[in-house]
């Protein structure tokens, strides 16, 4: 492939943040008509590297060449001028504007703004590559996948022919992912250069032509996708041999622990978030909860934890001796006072589970600071717990007095999970426990969850990666728009089955 001129060449790119070397002398070529998967663990420097290409960061050292010519990209505007467009994980759209308005926002075109001409051009782009969007639809009416489409069309509208997508499938259903891949293949055919940042091996295999692997800020190497496999890529990414199988021990003596019956929850703006949800979670079992993001998963867990007002229905906690207690209408302190020990690993780790600016010890204290009658806090036990969590879960931190927001995503999650399971809970609620985590950290989390299961704890696992749900969970509840569309056996269900249930409410009829 050396006779071709690379659309983009990175030469000896180095970037450090203080003492952290995020990218160390990285060399990488991106070609037109090709999809490159950029693979690496969290904190391996993938996003940093691509941010330098899109003008968000400026490299400390090194050179960027576009079509063989040395260039300087010091702002996103420069990046656009070279035809580089990046689709970030977090969308940057104005909710109250339409797709077309968002797409032209900030563009300086001469003359008066002609929205119908804009819409026509957008439709043309959609026809060319197979997108489906309505230029006049407001963004607040759109699903996550539609918003992502708007972001992609936005960069195409601006003439980008080098596209970078940062973990584009994290928020999509399998069907939506397939659509996105089809579109990306069309773009490749029309000669665009495409980079996708991802953790997911099967996506790399399904989509890309080449894989480049980073590890701890350094470039490990690149492979032609067809000549490699998931195991080899993982080993390169992690730097040592990893087993890719998730353990699923048989549940031992499962008994009902949480019974949710006909539960309905309305959000503050009056939208029905959960609609007559019923299921039972058993001890010693992992109950998976699948669904498109925003189908009521968050409200369900928060309702069980006493953080979400309930409109109607009941949530009963069943003791070992069979007596039941109602959790609806109680706040977290009252639930704790009843002797019900719930542990909750929320989706928003730093916004809800932890305090970002506080150090490890203070974060351990969040659960226990009330203990004792003294008006002063006892820091000894939280400190011992922090030491224990750091050691047992191999948290990579400069010290116990480091604010947790300075830690990488995986380490933040280990701190949170470590604290939650330290309270010896009877029920463990987890929301997107491995979102954004690299393979190593993810497997550590699966192992911890399995240990809890073996100890007889009822685990509710809200997940987005269907492959993982199918490998880890004993039973899977599928939510669609706030309703249970099916409850499947994790050992026999298929990905397609779940994917269909995720998008159709009437599912329970078929599986009755």
């Amino acid at each position, binding site marked *: 492939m050396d006779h071709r001129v690379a659309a983009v060449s990175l030469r000896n790119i180095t970037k450090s*943040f*203080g*003492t*952290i070397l995020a990218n160390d002398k990285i060399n990488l070529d991106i070609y037109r008509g090709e999809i490159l998967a950029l693979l690496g663990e969290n904190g391996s420097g993938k996003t940093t590297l691509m941010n330098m290409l899109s003008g968000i960061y*400026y490299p*400390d050292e090194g050179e960027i060449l576009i079509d063989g010519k*040395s*260039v*300087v990209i*010091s702002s996103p505007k*420069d990046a656009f*001028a070279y035809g580089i467009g990046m689709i970030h994980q977090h969308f940057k759209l104005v909710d109250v504007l339409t797709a077309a308005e968002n797409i032209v926002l900030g563009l300086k075109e001469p003359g008066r703004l002609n929205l119908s001409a804009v819409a026509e051009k957008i439709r043309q782009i959609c026809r060319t590559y197979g997108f489906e969007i309505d230029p006049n639809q407001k963004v607040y009416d759109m699903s996550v996948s539609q918003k992502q489409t708007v972001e992609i069309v936005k960069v195409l509208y601006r003439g980008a022919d080098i596209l970078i997508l940062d973990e584009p499938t994290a928020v999509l259903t399998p069907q939506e992912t397939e659509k996105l891949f089809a579109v990306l293949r069309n773009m490749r055919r029309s000669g665009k250069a495409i980079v996708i940042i991802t953790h997911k091996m099967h996506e790399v295999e399904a989509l890309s032509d080449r894989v480049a692997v980073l590890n701890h800020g350094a470039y490990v190497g690149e492979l032609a996708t067809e000549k490699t496999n998931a195991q080899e890529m993982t080993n390169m990414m992690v730097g040592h041999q990893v087993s890719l199988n998730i353990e699923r021990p048989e549940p031992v003596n499962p008994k009902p622990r949480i019974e949710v019956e006909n539960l309905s929850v309305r959000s503050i703006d009056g939208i029905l978030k959960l609609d007559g949800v019923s299921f039972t979670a058993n001890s010693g079992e992992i109950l998976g909860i699948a669904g498109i993001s925003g189908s009521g998963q968050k409200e369900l867990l928060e309702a069980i*934890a006493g*953080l979400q007002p309930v409109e109607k229905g009941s949530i009963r906690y069943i003791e070992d001796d069979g007596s039941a207690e109602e959790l609806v209408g109680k*706040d*977290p*302190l009252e639930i*704790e006072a009843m002797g019900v020990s719930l542990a*909750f690993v*929320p989706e*928003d780790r*730093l*916004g*809800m*589970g*932890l*305090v*970002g*600016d*506080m150090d490890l010890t*203070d974060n351990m*204290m*969040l*659960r226990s*600071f*009330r203990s004792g009658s*003294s*008006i*002063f*806090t006892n820091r000894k036990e939280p400190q011992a717990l922090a030491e224990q969590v750091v050691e047992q879960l191999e948290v990579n931190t400069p010290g116990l007095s480091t604010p947790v927001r300075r830690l990488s995503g995986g380490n933040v999650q280990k701190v949170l999970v470590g604290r939650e399971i330290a309270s010896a809970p009877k029920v463990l609620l987890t929301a997107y426990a491995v979102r954004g985590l690299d393979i190593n950290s993810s497997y550590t989390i699966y192992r911890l969850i399995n240990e809890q299961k073996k100890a007889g704890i009822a685990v509710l696992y809200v997940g987005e990666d269907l492959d993982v749900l199918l490998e880890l969970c004993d039973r899977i509840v599928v939510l669609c728009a706030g309703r249970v569309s099916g409850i499947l056996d994790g050992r026999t269900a298929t990905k397609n089955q779940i994917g269909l249930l995720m998008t159709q409410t009437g599912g329970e009829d078929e599986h009755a």
Partner: protein
Amino acid sequence: MSMHNKTPLVHISKRREMPWYWSFGIRAAAIAAAFLVCAFVTMALTGENPLAVFATLFYGAFGTERKIWILLQNIAILLCIALAVTPAFKMRFWNIGGEGQVLIGGLAAAACMILLGDKLPNGLLIAVSLAASLLSGALWGAIPAVFKAKWNTNETLFTLMMNYVATQLVAFFVIVWEVPKGAGKIGIINQSSEAGWLPQIGDYKYLLNILIVAVLTLAMYVYLRRSKHGYELSVVGQSERTARYVGIKVGRVIVRTMILSGAICGLAGFLLVAGTDHTITTTIAGGRGFTAVMVSWLAGFNPLSMVFTSFLLVFLDRGASEIATNFMLNHAFGDILAGIILFFIIGSEFFIRYQLHFRKRSKKEV
């Protein structure tokens, strides 16, 4: 489209961490630079010898024993108000109603002294007026807090407007209690009996105030760093959702903290009225309710560092007025100098947090 093919002249990046002596050095350099600029400004605008102006600045603050005591007293009051607003700020509750809470506390003390002056034994009178000051300050702090907790009103506007209510109340009672009639002011309360006046320690009029605030500084440090309350209010400030998640009752913490904040402001009002001024005017707080905000921020909400920041601000203020009188300049000139110095000190924080990278002169890598 202009494609400047050059590396940018400077680019800015965030620093990770720096050793304490580095940041200390940057601040010292900032102060030195500030004095240098002040010297130029002085020569350019007034033709005075800058060294003489600086000498006056120091003379104004430390020149005589009396000046030193006034300096210390002013530091004590400013520090007291800064300590009061700090727990609220740590909770991200922007209490800019310190001014009103001080005034209302002072008004309560004055009311007790005027109305009960000849009815209670002195010790009891002092205790009653102290309690009245604390309670009224607490009430003034609690009102916006309750509204915030219940209906999520904007505390910045609310506390600000409570200042005007307090000022007008004081103005009203000054007329009610004016001595003599038509004077428009109260004058020294209980001048002959000294009823309700805080006792003096030896010959030192201000010493008691200073000691009270010193104790309060340590107490606030311990409260914020070591107590369960202090921990709760930091969690609420950092993330309300985390606080709810661990079962902290957010509304209760907000109200409780503002009661504390208001009560300490009330104490400052009490120290002013019963301790030193023995009268009440609408300007008794003198804008210190707002200056205290700066003291607290500059010190990063650390009560011990606030000793230094309040010293700095009072020192600049005292020195500036001395310059104005001594050189027969407008008072504004002193403020200009104080402003320059503050600008440099606050600006130096940028260089502590961020790093500038300059373009390397010649980059020939072959």
